[in-house]
């Protein structure tokens, strides 16, 4: 190749973008929930969905290495895991990192987002990931990555990969990166000033006029939804208080009589604790499909600590344990459903004179 004659565009296309891909234990083809505790490992080249990416990326970019880490390992020590993963990524001197896609998997989304934050802050490299908008990783980390909007399960892989790859190719080409609607990523909350043809006052009046006429209008700035909760008064006289247990960990009576689904629960259950001193493998189980159930099935008190609450009740440290507990499965539960269940549960608890709640999650 005669370098003296090549244009800068040719030189750009000569250089293949070096990419490192971050995956969890499942997509990294190590195993399921039983492997969720694995620490970060590296593989040369592509693994799993990396192959689909490589196909889409063609000559524009090359996945030189894949870092795989267990979702529990990451979720249980976000800072430490982030630092370890960063170290592994750094070794490959990439130009860009792809994480996931994580779809609606909460732990995975948080891991991808945390990796994005590390890479952005330490290496100043673009990170492209893919998530369903309700993934908690979106709200926490959206400004550190380009989070391509995806469907809510791995069934959406075949649309997520091309969408993510398209953005990677833009970086590879040194092209200007457009806004969220154009590129398909979730708004990052980053403000970029530009000159509009029409001045702001005119545009504002234009929107107001439409609104007054009952016509459709598009806001330029959607009001942010701060998920804040009013701080409740602290519990006084705990020795007289009725405390209730609620869980998203899916603890249900053995046999799951209400058939609460292992994912995307369409319901919650209210179960009696009358005469129950302790949860055991014989009496209860977990219905939750998003974590390794063996430990919760062995001793459900590990998720719903009835045994300790009964002890405290006997000792007079608390007034009493409310005789009903509430349970659902917080695995891919839609925000809308979660809100609905919570408001119904809370109304019942308040109605029945409960003063405090211990909510446990897995």
């Amino acid at each position, binding site marked *: 190749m005669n370098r003296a004659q090549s244009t800068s565009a040719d030189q750009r296309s000569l250089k293949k973008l070096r990419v490192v891909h971050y995956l969890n234990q499942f997509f990294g083809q190590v195993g399921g929930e039983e492997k969720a505790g694995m620490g970060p490992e590296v593989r040369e080249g592509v693994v799993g969905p990396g192959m689909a990416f490589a196909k889409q990326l063609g000559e524009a970019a090359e996945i030189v290495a894949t870092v795989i880490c267990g979702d*529990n390992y990451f979720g249980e020590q976000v800072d430490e895991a982030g630092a370890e993963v960063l170290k592994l990524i750094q070794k490959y001197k990439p130009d860009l990192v792809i994480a996931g896609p994580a779809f609606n998997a909460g732990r995975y989304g948080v891991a991808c987002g945390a990796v994005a934050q590390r890479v952005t802050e330490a290496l100043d490299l673009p990170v492209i990931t893919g998530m369903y908008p309700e993934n908690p990783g979106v709200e926490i980390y959206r400004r550190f990555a380009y989070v391509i909007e995806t469907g809510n399960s791995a069934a959406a892989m075949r649309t997520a990969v091309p969408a993510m790859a398209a953005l990677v190719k833009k970086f590879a080409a040194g092209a200007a990166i457009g806004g969220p609607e154009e590129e398909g990523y979730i708004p990052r909350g980053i403000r970029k000033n530009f000159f509009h043809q029409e001045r702001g006052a005119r545009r504002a009046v234009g929107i107001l006029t439409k609104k007054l006429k009952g016509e459709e209008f598009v806001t330029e700035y959607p009001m942010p939804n701060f998920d804040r909760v009013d*701080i409740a008064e602290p519990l006084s006289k705990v020795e007289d208080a009725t405390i209730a247990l609620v869980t998203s960990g899916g603890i249900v009576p053995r046999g799951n009589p209400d058939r609460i689904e292992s994912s995307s629960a369409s319901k919650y259950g209210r179960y009696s604790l009358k005469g129950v001193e302790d949860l055991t493998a014989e009496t209860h189980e977990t219905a939750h499909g998003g974590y390794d159930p063996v430990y919760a099935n062995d001793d459900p008190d590990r998720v719903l600590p009835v045994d*300790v609450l009964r002890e405290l009740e006997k000792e007079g440290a608390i007034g009493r344990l409310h005789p009903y507990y509430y349970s659902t499965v917080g695995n891919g539960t839609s925000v809308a459903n979660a809100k609905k269940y919570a408001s119904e549960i809370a109304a019942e608890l308040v109605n029945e004179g409960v003063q405090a709640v211990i909510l446990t999650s897995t």
Partner: protein
Amino acid sequence: MVHVATVVPISETVGANKIVPAVAIPYPLGNPDMPPDEEQRLRRRLVEKSIEALTTAVEEQTVFDS
């Protein structure tokens, strides 16, 4: 209310005001690697920390670490 949860950033992002960090995702209030009586003491400590959180006045989202 107090939220006993492992991934504290998620609890914070949904607005929990009192958070007690849990042991691990598959066993928030337990540890299968411990002998049973030690595990029982661990669970007791976490529940006591939760009760302490319930009775404590806070001005902002607070993580009740051990």
